[in-house]
């Protein structure tokens, strides 16, 4: 392991990913330090989701190296679940367990994976439900909640595992417009608390105000990587300019 990879919480080196013949990621190099907040944007099919899914090995990369907190993710890795425990993920479609109440959704992995007692798991679950401002929904089933509430539960569920890194895969894309803000507020709150975050999102307001760095991807490559002010006011790459024009004109 190089000196470099120790300092970074996340490091990707020359990562390629193929789906059959199709190359989804091309030579990705990315370093994320502790407490850094990264926003990844780009047109659909550009490889944004694939990139962050390689970070908890929901997708296996085909070439290059991925390090999480100094541990390399490979086929030989003994306990991928030990790494996954440190990396929280929030999905576009929430993916709450439909057969469990909200509080059980938050407790199950704590008890099974972190081997925490039922009482402690419940206490921690209620703590995080309060943090996302829906403790009163604890005993409902996910289907009885609005989309925004479900996504906040999903964020709380990931936080219960006390992760070092939070990955967000288009967390507001499946939401009705009036519910987007309640989810973004929770994410801003989390960012202010110093969580290391990588967010794939089209919420440019969020990107501008929260991100330390914005990464623009197209066709499986990182095309541009810069601070928000630079990214929005002075984009260098032609493809970035086109993309920003398309999403900011309306």
């Amino acid at each position: 392991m190089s000196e470099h990879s120790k300092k970074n919480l996340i490091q990707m080196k020359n990562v390629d990913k193929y789906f059959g013949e199709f190359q989804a990621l091309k030579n990705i190099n990315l370093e994320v330090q502790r407490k850094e907040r990264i926003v990844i944007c780009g047109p659909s099919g550009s490889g944004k989701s694939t990139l962050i899914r390689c970070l908890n090995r929901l997708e296996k990369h085909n070439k290059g190296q991925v390090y999480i907190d100094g541990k390399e993710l490979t086929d030989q890795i003994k306990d991928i679940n030990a790494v996954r425990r440190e990396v929280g993920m929030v999905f576009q479609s929430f993916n709450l367990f439909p057969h469990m109440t909200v509080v059980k959704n938050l407790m199950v992995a704590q008890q099974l994976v972190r081997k925490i007692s039922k009482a402690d798991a419940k206490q921690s679950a209620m703590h995080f439900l309060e943090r996302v401002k829906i403790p009163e929904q604890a005993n409902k089933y996910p289907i009885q909640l609005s989309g925004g509430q479900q996504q906040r539960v999903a964020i709380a569920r990931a936080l219960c595992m006390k992760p070092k890194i939070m990955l967000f895969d288009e967390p507001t894309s499946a939401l009705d417009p009036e519910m987007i803000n309640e989810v973004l507020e929770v994410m801003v709150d989390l960012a202010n608390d110093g969580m290391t975050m990588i967010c794939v999102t089209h919420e440019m307001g969020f990107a501008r105000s929260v991100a330390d760095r914005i990464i623009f991807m197209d066709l499986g490559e990182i095309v541009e990587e810069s601070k928000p002010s630079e990214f929005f006011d002075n984009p260098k790459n032609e493809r970035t300019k086109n993309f920003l024009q398309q999403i900011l004109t309306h």
Partner: protein
Amino acid sequence: MIVDYTLIAESLPVMLKGIGITFQLLFISGFLGLILAIFLLLMRLSGKWYLSFPAQVYIYIFRGTPILVQIFIIYYGLPQFGFIRSSIFWPILREPMGCAIVALSLNTGAYVSEILRGGVLAVGKGLIEAGSALGMSAYQKFVYITAPIATRIALPAYSNDVISLLKSTALASTITIADMTGIARTIVANTYAPYEIFISLAIVYLIFTFILQKSFGYLEQYLGRYTKREE
């Protein structure tokens, strides 16, 4: 045709003495078949060809041949082999009841494993990924996420199979077993009154089917309680 109500009134209680046997066939075979089905399912889901392939062959054979033929093969065919007569299974296979239970279990197991597989395949991929992302092991994901959801999804088709098994138990009467159908056949042989006897027998089966249907209906509602928006 004149219906002989006295005959019905006299034979019904006699036929109902076979309920015990019919229920034994249904519940024991249903239980053993379910366990077999879970094994076959796990073999098929293992992703290992040397487990999956035998399970597929087994399912193909038992779904592809009539249950009556399977009962005959086990009852008349197996005792032909010396090694079966000297095996530990002989005390079971020597008895018609044992043969019937074995045949019904083997048959229903093949069907039920496919029903369960349908349920497992219908569980959303995203839920399994959520489990992975939380660091749950393959075993934990199966037991806490896949199995409970798959059970709910598979239940309507499974209840169908249990009802079908209830009716298949009647075939046990062909190998001398005195279940309700077996007793009815004996009465018909003595009274030459097939209509009265078999129609009242059919009604008895209908009543039990109704009870099974209702019970599964309640179970479905209970297991599906989290799929309804209102409380």
